């Protein structure tokens, strides 16, 4: 592509009414010897009768940073000195120095979007003609080799196909954050290798994330790298732990993190891919490969990832993030290390005391019914109908939590008291609650039909294990 050092340059496309309107004018400017080159984005035969430079590859349009067509610009000494976009008679006359042009046209008419800035195109052109500023190693996959098979062969996946992380897709993902690509996010266990924003973006692309999910992915990673979360232990335990991400605040609705029907299941891109992105980072950067540094005896389906939003539609219910110190109206994620889920049914319970009692019974199954008194964690997900029972009784979060906590109590002599380290945890017959304070998280999610709760079973919890960590989602 050659750009003249001096004179006028016009960028047009046939599929633009304003460009077609000014086409005779372009011919006039060329006859007068002023117009040095016309770049046509979609049709080298347009405008008719002119020497047109074919710019269907959009190199000139990208180089000239064209956002609107027609764009008329003047270059002097190899530098741009003036530019007009769309049709505006006075501006065209001023730029060309011709006071007699366009008299038969309306005074002004807006232009059309340049093909070089159509959605997704800018990053493609940046890769082709500019510098990406990305540092990751590039691997070229020649036709007819299949990039999907390549990625399987290289061990980059969780067993399902991943989206090829092309430079353009990664650039688009990076648009989702204000952070610089080479910012270091931390070291991901078990390998302890460094993760940058760029590497996180690559894995988010592969997981299938949209760029507007990326701040949630980064917040979840930041939370998971908090030493209190003990990611090292979670990713290498024989018990087989995954990472559950609970999203609170306006970003959940904005990007579509599901909190309703099938919230803990499939069918929603944000839920599925945000969770998967974190899991892929743990595999690809952290090196948590099953049988290698991931020592899971059995694992569980949630190791593909679990992410859902809390149902915040009940104004009387304090959302999880607020209960953990995040100001109302702010978005946040809470990460929780988990080893599977179970659904529980208490259809005969119609009032909050009996409902709490039945939930407490079910919670005793976490880890082992004979274990209690701390060191264990769980997330209790209350469905819409359970939420309604508590709401109609006027029970706020604290009362619900206290009642359920109390309902898990069992006599000490029913427990395997010495299992967790021989510590005396009370007198025989003394009531021992299942969870230590802070180790049971209660959230609302799911549809409004069905008397169910789901228990997300934790790993070893408390200061000696993995503690839930909450982080605000930042741009």
């Amino acid at each position, binding site marked *: 592509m050659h750009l003249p050092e001096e004179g006028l340059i016009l960028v047009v496309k046939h599929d633009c009414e304003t460009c077609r309107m000014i086409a005779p004018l372009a011919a006039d400017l060329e006859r007068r010897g002023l117009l040095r080159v016309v770049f046509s984005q979609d049709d080298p035969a347009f405008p008719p009768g002119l020497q047109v430079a074919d710019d269907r590859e959009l190199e000139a349009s990208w180089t000239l940073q064209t956002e609107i067509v027609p764009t008329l610009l003047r270059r002097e000494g190899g530098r741009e000195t003036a530019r007009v976009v769309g049709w505006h008679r006075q501006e065209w006359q001023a730029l060309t120095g011709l006071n007699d042009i366009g008299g038969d046209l309306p005074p002004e008419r807006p232009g059309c979007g340049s093909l070089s800035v159509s959605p997704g195109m800018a990053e493609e052109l940046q890769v082709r003609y500019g510098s990406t500023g990305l540092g990751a190693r*590039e691997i070229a996959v020649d036709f007819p080799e299949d990039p999907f098979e390549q990625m399987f062969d290289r061990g980059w996946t969780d067993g399902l196909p991943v989206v090829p992380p092309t430079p353009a897709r990664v650039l688009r993902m990076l648009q989702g954050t204000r952070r610089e690509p080479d910012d270091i996010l931390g070291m991901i266990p078990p390998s302890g290798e460094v993760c940058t924003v760029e590497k996180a973006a690559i894995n988010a692309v592969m997981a299938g994330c949209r760029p507007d999910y990326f701040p949630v992915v980064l917040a979840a990673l930041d939370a998971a790298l908090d030493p209190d979360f*003990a990611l090292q232990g979670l990713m290498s335990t024989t018990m087989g732990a995954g990472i559950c991400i609970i999203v609170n605040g306006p970003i959940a609705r904005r990007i579509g993190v599901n909190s309703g029907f099938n919230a803990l299941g499939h069918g929603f891109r944000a839920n599925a891919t945000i969770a998967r992105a974190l899991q892929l980072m743990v595999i690809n950067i952290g090196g948590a490969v099953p049988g290698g540094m991931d020592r899971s005896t059995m694992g569980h389906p949630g190791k593909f990832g679990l992410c859902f939003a809390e149902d915040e539609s009940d104004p009387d219910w304090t959302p999880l993030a607020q209960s953990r110190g995040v100001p109302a109206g702010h978005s946040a994620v809470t990460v929780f290390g988990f080893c599977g889920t179970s659904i529980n049914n208490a259809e005969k319970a119609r009032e909050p005391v009996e409902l709490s009692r039945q939930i407490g019974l079910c919670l005793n199954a976490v880890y082992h019914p004979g274990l209690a008194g701390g060191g264990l964690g769980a997330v209790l997900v209350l469905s819409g109908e359970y939420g309604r029972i508590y709401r109609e009784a006027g029970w706020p979060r604290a009362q619900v939590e206290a009642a359920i906590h109390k309902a898990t109590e069992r006599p000490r002599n029913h427990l395997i008291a010495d299992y*967790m380290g021989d510590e005396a945890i009370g007198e025989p017959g003394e009531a021992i609650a299942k969870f230590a304070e802070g180790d049971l998280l209660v959230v609302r999610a799911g549809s409004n039909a069905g008397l169910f709760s789901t228990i997300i079973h934790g790993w070893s919890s408390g200061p000696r294990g993995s503690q839930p960590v909450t982080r605000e989602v930042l741009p």
Partner: protein
Amino acid sequence: MTEPIVLLDPTSERSGAMRSRTAAPASLEGLTVGLLDISKGRGDKFLDRMEVLFGERGITVERFAKPTFAKKAPDDLAAAIAERCDIVVEALAD
């Protein structure tokens, strides 16, 4: 026919350094053996027995414990074991 597709590497792009295992000593005579409890349930029982067995053979033993099995050993603990012991027995138990 078709341009190659370029993929960006999602890994750390580093492979771990391979270090050869230290050769086992021909004899434990005169050596100090570290017994590291990683704080898994009943690991201490295994190490208690090891301590007795080493003691019967006149071998010096030092006991150490990680605060929790869930996290890496603190650097100071790893350094103390390296400084004071010739070999270490780490108990992974349940």
